[in-house]
């Protein structure tokens, strides 16, 4: 299927592309274009768009090429840095998850086997002194203190990480 309304449009398009229209073409073709609606439309559109392009070419105030070059280099470097830091972040997350899982498993194991050293440890380190007097002799005081210290350590780590990230 052809979308050319006139068989001579191809010839005319080539002349227009080379800039040979209208001065370097035959009088016969000129007469044809004057009579042919499709060819006349092609000439009108091509000339209108070319004139518009010539009109637009001097309009912009361009940035110096060096600035664009430098910004491209900067973006390349930033992209490379991001690409590098992505697996590092993954490794950090993996390490934290493994450490937490190990700690949880160990605590679970100790609790299942009736570990009494939790209470002894907190008493030996005088952690219970930080608790209200009513709770100091409670059987869960030791475990509560250990959990409290673990939570404080974890929160401290998170705060430190966020601060260094910023």
């Amino acid at each position, binding site marked *: 299927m052809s*979308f050319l309304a006139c068989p001579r449009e191809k010839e005319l398009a080539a002349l227009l*592309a080379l800039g040979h229209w209208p001065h370097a073409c035959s009088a016969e073709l000129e007469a044809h274009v004057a009579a042919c609606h499709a060819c006349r*439309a*092609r000439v*009108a*559109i*091509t000339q*209108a*768009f*070319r*004139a*518009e*392009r010539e*009109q*637009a*070419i*001097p*309009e*912009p105030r*361009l*940035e*110096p*090429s*060096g*600035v*664009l*070059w*430098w*910004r*491209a*280099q*900067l*973006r*390349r*470097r930033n*992209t*490379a840095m991001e690409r590098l830091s992505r697996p590092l972040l993954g490794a950090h997350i993996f390490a934290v998850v493994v450490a937490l899982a190990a700690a949880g498993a160990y605590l679970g194991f100790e609790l299942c086997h009736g570990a009494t050293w939790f209470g002894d440890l907190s008493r030996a380190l005088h952690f219970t002194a930080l608790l209200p007097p009513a709770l100091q002799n409670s059987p869960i005081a030791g475990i509560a203190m250990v959990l409290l210290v673990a939570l404080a350590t974890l929160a401290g780590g998170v705060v430190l990480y966020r601060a260094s990230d910023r």
Partner: protein
Amino acid sequence: MNLESVIPNALAGEAPALAGATGTSTGMDDEVFAGFYARSARPLWAYLARVSSDPTLADDLLQEAYIRFLTAATPRSAQLDGEVAARRYLFRIATNLLRDHWRRPRAASLEDVPERHFEIHGHAALSESRALLGPLLIQLRPRERQLLWLAYAEGYSHHEIAHITGLASASIRLLLFRARRKAARLLEPPSDRRSQ
């Protein structure tokens, strides 16, 4: 702070390369790029400004297109075929940026519109008054403006337009035929239009 104090010779187009021998994946060094930029920037701006009808947007997209051109992994064909292919690749990047801009959701309320938006309209109106084809381009759809500009202002073939716009070559033929028919009708004097 003066730019020259941060980047030596940046304004003269001699900014130092931060990575690699040529500093880009296009295989261009800064001097070759400066020449390429000087030859291609104004036609690319004209394309962006006339297709989008917004010169300020054209300024932004032009810079972004060159930065992406320099940072992207250029297809091997564009490296081998020289400046013509590099230019075509640049137009393709600019076309994708235009498409992304049109797809982006617009601001919902007047409060969300930044102050500079109002300046854009003033500038655009000024430019439209300078544009010869202003009234015609406004009546065409963006896709039609794009195809007509690439075919008749830039002189690209159907195959090249297909490469730039990402459409099939056969679709280009049909879309361009329709756009041209519409543009021809709009270019005719009103008396001729009535007589048909």
